[in-house]
């Protein structure tokens, strides 16, 4: 989405910049345009804070899985299946 050459951007363009900002640095021009839009548009402002919350939640989820704070246990059946697969392939 090219916003070069204009100062006022649309919601469609603003949301794109908000999205981009989640993982990439915006240029100075992009930051300024987004800022100008967000002080005028409550929907995009809302969108920005919600998308940021979602990004944070995903990061938190990944961290919690890595730290074993979320653990989904294998059933006994699944464990048996996995163990016998390992045994079988060790003998091969």
């Amino acid at each position, binding site marked *: 989405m090219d916003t070069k050459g204009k100062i006022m951007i649309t*919601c469609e363009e603003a949301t794109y910049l908000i*999205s981009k900002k989640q993982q990439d640095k915006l240029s100075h021009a992009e930051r300024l345009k987004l800022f100008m839009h967000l002080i005028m548009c409550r929907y995009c402002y809302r*969108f920005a804070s919600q*998308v940021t919350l979602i990004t944070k939640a*995903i990061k938190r989820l990944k961290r919690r*899985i890595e730290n074993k704070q979320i653990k989904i246990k*294998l059933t006994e059946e*699944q*464990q048996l299946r996995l163990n016998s697969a*390992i045994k079988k392939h060790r003998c091969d």
Partner: protein
Amino acid sequence: MNSQPVVLDPDSWVRKYGDILYTYAISRVNDPNRAEDLVQETFLAGLKNMAGFKGHSSEQTWLIAILKRKVVDFYRQKARNREVKLETNPQRFKKDKPMKGHWLDTFTPKRWDNEAQIKLESDEFMHILKRCIEKLPIKWASCFMLRIMEEMKTEEICKELNITSSNLWVILHRARLQLRDCLESNWIKE
């Protein structure tokens, strides 16, 4: 420092790492059977590559790295040979002047209260997120998983999925728009 060399012990893998690998897999793929398959493939690949294990990392880190690769393969294969259909995206913004590019009334983001943040921090989030990702077109879901969950580099994803980087950015953006909608209407504001 002289640390003990790590010796691999496949007989203890399921007991020691089964749950953590399964949790990782199930957070990435929606189907428990598919997740179990990925864990099994990981163990078998581990057995095959035991000679390649240099002991620089722990057994667990090594196995998770293998699983990660399996997840990436899974999404790459899913996305392969699929056209990128951007038009499956519902039109969220006005098409005609003078309000071209502004939110359509039905698609304006709703206000979220404090409850929303509590929900996003709950363990339920993992399941809702997966359900919402599942609803995305396959190629979008793959882009999202590889970039956001697996944190693969942009160039790598473009190569694997055969798309341009600007394509990837647009896909990720549309995926986010849709994901936000899905979370809002199916969970936060149900």
